[in-house]
C-alpha cells in the first residue's frame, strides 16, 4: 500500500479498469452484465449490472484478500484509526456476530447492556455464550434506556471475573453514549475484551466534536454501519480491530458465516464512501449537525414536543450525546411516538426512522435538504394542531429489567410449546419479541415472561408498533419452554 493514500479507492479503481477491458464472461453471475435479464437491467441501470461481477484475480477475493481488497481494507483501517479493518457484506449484524464469536466460545460469559441490538443476542444463540446483563439506566421522563453506568459495569466485572468480554453501544439508537474510555480501562484491567456496537456511530470517526470513538478509546473491536451515516449501500459495514486482536483468526471467524460471493456493488460502495468521508467528512458532518440543531430548535419552538440534546448529559449513564440524532419526545402532545410516526407517513408522506411508545427518531444525514427539514418541522406542527390532545392518559415507556432463566442458545433449541400471549405469565420465552425498528428485544430467548411484559406488548401492538421476532406472525401466541 506504499503509494496509496485516502484519495484512492482501490476496489472502485479496479472495477473501472475491469470494465474497460471488456472481458467476455464465462463465469457467474449468469445475468452476464445484465444482458440476460433486461427488465432488471432497465430497472437498476446498465452501469450497475456491469459491475455486479464475481471475485477474480484482478478484483481480489473478500474471503482471502491479497490485492485490491487488501489495499482497500488497509486504507479503511487508516481512515478509522484502527489496526485492521474488514469489509463486511452481511450488514453490521455480521460484524457484531463476528466480534462476539471471536471473543466467546460455548459457556463463556459476556457482559452487555440489555438494550443491545438483536444481532448481539443472536450471536449468543450461535456461540452458546452466556449473557451477563447490565441493566441500563433509564430516563423516567422520556422512557428511554440510557447507557451503562461505570459503577454498574464495575460491579458486573467483579461479580463475573471469568467473563471474556464486555459489549458497549456507542451510541444507542437514541444517540446516548456511555463512558467508553473508563469502561475500556476497567475491562482491560480485568483481562476482558471490549466489543463496541457502533452501528450508529460512523460519523464519530470523521466529524468534529462528536463523542469518542471505539478505536480512540482503545477498545478491541467495533462494528460500524457505514451504510447509516456513512453513505454506502444498505447491508455494507466495517468491522474494526484494535492492535491486540489477531486479524488472521478474525478472518477465519468471519468466513464461518460470510458469503463466498461478496457483492462488488457493496464493496465498491464501502470503498468510495470511505474515501469521501476521509477527504470531506468534517464538512459533511458539520452540515448534518447544523441541520439537526436547526430542526431541534424549531421543533422545540412549536411547543409540546421535546427534541432533546446535550442537556441530558449526566457524566455517567449519559456520558455524551450524539447531536446529529434528532430524537423527539412526543407524549406531551398526547400522541405516542409510534402514532406520530404513522401520521407523518400516512398524512404527510414523510418516512422517519422509528417511533416507539414515547419518542420518534428522524434520521438526519448529508443527503437531507433544508427544504425537507422545513417540511418535517411543519408536519410536526400540523400534527400537533390537528391531532394533539392532553397527554395525561399516556403510558410512559418503561425499560423492563429481564429475568434470565436460561441461556439464549438453550432456550432457542429447547422443546417448546405455543400458548396464547395472555397465558404465558410466569413461563420462559423461547423466542424474541421486539418492535422493529429499533430492534431492541422486549423479550429474548430464555427470559421470564411477566404480567408487566404482556401488558407492554399489548399496548405497543394497540398503538401500532411493528412487532417482530415471534414464530406467530400476529404475536397472539408465544413459544415457551416446555419443562
Amino acid at each position, binding site marked *: 500500500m506504499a503509494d496509496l493514500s485516502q484519495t484512492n479507492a482501490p476496489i472502485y479503481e479496479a472495477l473501472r479498469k475491469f470494465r474497460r477491458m471488456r472481458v467476455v464472461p464465462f463465469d457467474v453471475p449468469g445475468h452476464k452484465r445484465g444482458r440476460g435479464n433486461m427488465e432488471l437491467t432497465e430497472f437498476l441501470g446498465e452501469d450497475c449490472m456491469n459491475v455486479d461481477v464475481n471475485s477474480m484475480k484482478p478484483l481480489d477475493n473478500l474471503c482471502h484478500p491479497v490485492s485490491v481488497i487488501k489495499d482497500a481494507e488497509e486504507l479503511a483501517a487508516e481512515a478509522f484509526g484502527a489496526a485492521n479493518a474488514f469489509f463486511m457484506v452481511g450488514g453490521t449484524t455480521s460484524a457484531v456476530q463476528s466480534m462476539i464469536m471471536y471473543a466467546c466460545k460455548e459457556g463463556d460469559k459476556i457482559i452487555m447492556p440489555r438494550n443491545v441490538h438483536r444481532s448481539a443476542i443472536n450471536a449468543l444463540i450461535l456461540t452458546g455464550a452466556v449473557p451477563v446483563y447490565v441493566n441500563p439506566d433509564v430516563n423516567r421522563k422520556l422512557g428511554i434506556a440510557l447507557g451503562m453506568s461505570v459503577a454498574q459495569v464495575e460491579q458486573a466485572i467483579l461479580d463475573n471475573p471469568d467473563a471474556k468480554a464486555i459489549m458497549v453501544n456507542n451510541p444507542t439508537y437514541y444517540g446516548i453514549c456511555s463512558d467508553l474510555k473508563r469502561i475500556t480501562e476497567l475491562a482491560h484491567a480485568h483481562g476482558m475484551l471490549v466489543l463496541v456496537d457502533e452501528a450508529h456511530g460512523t460519523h464519530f470517526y470523521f466529524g468534529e466534536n462528536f463523542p469518542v470513538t471505539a478505536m480512540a478509546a482503545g477498545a478491541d473491536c467495533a462494528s460500524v454501519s457505514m451504510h447509516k451515516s456513512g453513505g454506502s449501500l444498505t447491508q455494507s459495514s466495517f468491522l474494526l480491530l484494535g492492535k491486540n486482536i489477531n486479524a488472521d483468526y478474525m478472518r477465519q471467524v468471519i468466513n464461518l458465516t460470510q458469503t463466498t460471493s461478496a457483492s462488488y456493488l457493496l464493496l465498491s460502495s464501502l470503498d468510495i464512501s470511505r474515501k469521501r468521508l476521509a477527504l470531506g467528512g468534517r464538512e459533511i458532518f458539520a452540515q448534518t449537525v447544523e441541520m439537526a440543531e436547526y430542526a431541534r430548535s424549531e421543533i422545540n419552538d412549536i411547543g409540546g414536543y421535546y427534541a432533546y440534546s446535550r442537556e441530558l448529559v449526566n457524566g455517567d449513564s449519559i456520558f455524551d450525546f450524539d447531536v446529529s440524532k434528532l430524537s423527539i419526545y412526543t407524549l406531551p402532545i398526547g400522541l405516542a411516538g409510534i402514532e406520530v410516526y404513522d401520521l407523518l407517513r400516512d398524512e404527510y*408522506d414523510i418516512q422517519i426512522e422509528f417511533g416507539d411508545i414515547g419518542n420518534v427518531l428522524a434520521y438526519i444525514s448529508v443527503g437531507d435538504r*433544508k*427544504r425537507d427539514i*422545513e*417540511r418535517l*418541522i*411543519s*408536519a410536526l*406542527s*400540523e400534527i400537533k394542531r390537528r391531532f394533539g390532545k392532553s397527554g395525561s392518559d399516556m403510558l410512559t415507556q418503561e425499560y423492563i429489567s429481564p429475568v434470565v432463566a436460561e441461556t439464549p442458545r438453550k432456550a432457542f433449541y429447547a422443546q417448546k410449546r405455543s400458548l396464547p400471549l395472555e397465558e404465558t405469565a410466569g413461563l420462559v420465552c423461547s423466542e424474541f419479541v421486539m418492535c422493529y425498528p429499533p430492534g431492541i428485544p422486549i423479550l429474548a430467548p430464555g427470559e421470564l415472561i411477566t404480567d408487566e411484559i404482556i401488558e407492554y406488548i399489548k399496548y405497543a401492538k394497540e398503538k401500532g408498533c411493528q412487532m417482530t421476532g415471534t414464530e406467530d406472525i400476529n404475536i397472539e401466541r408465544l413459544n415457551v419452554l416446555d419443562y
Partner: protein
Amino acid sequence: MELWFTERHTPNVKFSIKVDHQLYSGNSEFQRIDVFDSKEFGRFLTLDGYMMLTEKDEFIYHEMITHVPMAVHPNPKNILVIGAGDGGVVRELTRYPSVESIDLVEIDELVVEVCKKYLPTTACRFDDPRVHVFYEDGVKFIRRCNDQYDVIIVDSTDPFGPGEGLFTKEFYGSCFKALRDDGIMVNQHESPFYDEDAAAMQRSHKRIVESFPISKVYQAHIPTYPSGHWLFGFASKKYHPTNDYNGTKWSMQGIKTRYYNPRLHTGAFALPCYVEELLRDVE
C-alpha cells in the same frame, strides 16, 4: 442563425420559442435563472429551464390567480403571497386601494433582483409602501402565522425543485391556520392534461380537500404552459367562489383587466367532464 428555447412538456412533446437574444443567465443557491427576449412572446423568464412567464401571456395567469379570490372576499385587507418573485401578483394586488398590507415571501432573492432589472412589466410595484418582501422558505414563514390573513396566494413553481414544499399537506394546513375565519387561499394548481401534470394536480387537490371545508378548482388558458390548459385551486373557510360572489360589486371598483371579468369568473369554475372526474377521484 437560429436560436431556440425548448422545454420538454412530456418525454414525447417539446415546446419551442425562437429566441432573439439572451438577457440574463445565472445560478442562485436554489436554481438556474434565465431571461430571454423573443419576437413572438417578448421577454420571458425560465427557472431551471421551465417556463415561468412571458410578457405576452403573463396577464392571464396573474389576473386569474389574483382577482378571483379578491373579488370573492368582501373585504380583503391583509394579503400573503408566497412565491411570485416576478412581481406579477403584487402588481395586480396593488390595484386595490382597500388592501392594507401585502406580505410577499420568496425563497430566492436573486429572482426578484433579476425580474426588477429585466422584467419591468411584472416587477413594477415592489416599491409600493404596503408591500413587505421576506426572503425565506414559504413553508417556514407560514408555520409561525396564526389567524392573520384574509387572502393567501400561492404562486408556486412546480411540485419538484425549490417549490415542492408548497404542494404539501403540511403547507396547506399551515395556510389554513394562517387565515382568518373567512379567509381564502388560491394556488397554482398545475394542468389536468398530460399524465404527469394531472397526477400532480390530483395530489395537490386531495391535500387541499383534506385541509379546507370548501375546495374548488377553476381554469384559464395560458398558451406557454404545458398543453395551455391550466388550473387554479380555490380553497376557502367560509365563502363559496360563485355562490358568494358579487360581480357587480367588483366591477364598481373600476379595475381595468384584459382577461378577468365577472362573467368569466363564474364560467371559469365550469370544468370539462374529464377534469371533474379527475378531481372527483381524489375527493
